């Protein structure tokens, strides 16, 4: 469902050109569980942002579900993001003034769903994360693990085909980090494609497929049977 062909991304830093991505070819099928590893500055976040349609390649093509995304307008891109992609961040990025339930509801609100349709979807997503009791708490009343679970509920409430997680455990202790990884793996088991960017080889090693990046290129692509 994700096909990248000779994707380049060049940033202008001062009068110097930095090749964050230098000709990446990558195909990820629906329902795959992929980890993306590599040192800082190797281009993994840039790759994730391009897959998540937050960034556009300088050159090359990116097809999402067979559709070329480089020619999409801003509106169409936003829509594709809303329908196909869920984001989970290292720093959770919850809206502090909204309750857990309202944070989870946001993607549905932005997509213009009717309030009657939204409620059951929010309840299901929150229930899956075991947060029903905490749904009316604000982020500052929740623990780190709970916050990340709210963020995952928010990322999956639209039932996207792909979940993109950028260092989802980077801001959590080992125990809660493990819980979050298990939740993500449960989503994969239910059929969602998952791409996890991580520094932690232990977490990276749990994926069916491990990609390693170096200086903007994919240098390793290991597949193992789970």
């Amino acid at each position, binding site marked *: 469902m994700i096909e990248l062909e000779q994707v380049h991304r060049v940033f202008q830093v001062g009068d110097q050109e930095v090749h964050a991505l230098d000709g990446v070819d990558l195909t990820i099928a629906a329902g795959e569980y992929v980890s993306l590893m590599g040192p800082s500055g190797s281009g993994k976040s840039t790759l994730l942002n391009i897959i998540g349609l*937050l960034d556009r390649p300088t050159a090359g093509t990116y097809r999402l579900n067979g559709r070329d995304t480089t020619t999409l307008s801003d509106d169409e*891109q936003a*829509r594709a*993001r809303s329908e196909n992609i869920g984001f989970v961040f290292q720093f959770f*990025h919850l*809206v502090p*003034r*909204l309750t857990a339930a309202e944070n989870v509801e946001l*993607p549905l609100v*932005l997509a213009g769903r009717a309030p009657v349709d939204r409620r059951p979807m929010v309840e299901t997503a929150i229930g899956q994360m075991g947060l029903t009791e905490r749904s009316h708490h604000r982020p500052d009343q929740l623990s780190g693990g709970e916050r990340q679970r709210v963020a995952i509920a928010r990322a999956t409430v639209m039932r996207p085909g792909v979940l993109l997680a950028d260092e989802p455990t980077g801001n959590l202790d080992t125990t809660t980090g493990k819980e979050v990884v298990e939740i993500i793996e449960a989503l994969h088991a239910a059929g969602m494609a998952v791409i996890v960017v991580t520094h932690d080889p232990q977490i990276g090693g749990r994926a069916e497929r491990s990609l390693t990046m170096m200086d903007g290129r994919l240098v390793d692509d290991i597949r193992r049977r789970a």
Partner: protein
Amino acid sequence: MRVRDVLHLSWGTLVRTRLRSLMLLLATAIGVAAVIVLTSLGEAARRYVTAEFSSLGTNLIIVLPGRSETTGSGLTLFAGQTPRDLTIQDAVALERISAIDKVAPVVLGAASVQWGGREREVPVFGSTASFLEIRNWTMERGRFLPPGDPERPSSVAVIGMKLKAELFGDAPAIGEWIRIGDRRFRVIGLLATEGRTIGIDVQDVAIIPVASAQALFNTESLFRIITSTHTREDMERARDEIRRVITERHQGEEDITAVTQDAVLATFDRIFGALTLALAGIAAISLAVAGILIMNVMLVAVSQRTAEIGLLKALGAARRQIMTLFLAEAIMLSFIGAMAGLLVGQGGSWLIGRLYPVLPLGPPVWAPIAAIVIAVTSGIVFGILPARRAAALDPVEALAGR
């Protein structure tokens, strides 16, 4: 995105940043309230003056000595040409014009009025029996000046209620002899009318026959001649006739000014209308300032909320939606501010009206509408720049908090 959701999200932000929102509301409210109070005052002044002039009577044409236009070469000025006086004979001549209903010659001066050791300096009108009807005045007690030859003096006087109270107290005044200047007059009636006319308190005057007043003030000329026509349609014709008759009597010199009440009213209407507009303009400046304030604060808000904007984009918000959210905030602020200003402004006008009951306060109909429209428009105009800036943020950099 649904309108209700946009309002809900924006409202949430406004409530969270309570102090900031209140300050902006205050700025807009002051602007709108200023527009309403200032236009109320301007409008009140206009209504006050209009009412004053209408109280003079209806279908009036006022004849004044002298001509308002400048004609001829500058040399005539040095030749010592002065306008001829208006005389009682002129007034009598005007009575013969068919379009004219009543004619009242008027002499005005100030004199001391005495009775029983008390003395009071008041305006003294000299006129005829028609004066009462032309001015729409009514009598409290007794009679007004009797009809008869206006050129014959007679020692009778009509006085206002305040003058009566000051001189006589509770004692009866009718039939008593009072001294006006150096002459004696018998009081034959008391005026009931209250209020002011050309700045004079009607209750504090004495009215005597025109010929007596001329003798008292030692003058042959009239202050003016007030005439009334039968109908409103007669006014134009009557004015032209007046000019013709007086010109004939004054050896071919048109040395008078005849103004219709309508013309005076229209002039004052224009002057005060312009005054109200000018006041509204001044107040509108404060609205513009409020708008710029909103823009400033919204720009700060955009830079404070970059991470949130980035997040919204990651969750599938298009540029348009981000713009809508920020614009909605600015519009809500200015609209609520305008409403608050409307209340404060109306309350302020009401309060001023209570303190100065003479002023018929109340803003012109257009003022509150215009104030709200300007406030909301400035919210939109000054909200666009911050909203565009928010929408244009690069989501990757915004999420990284850069």
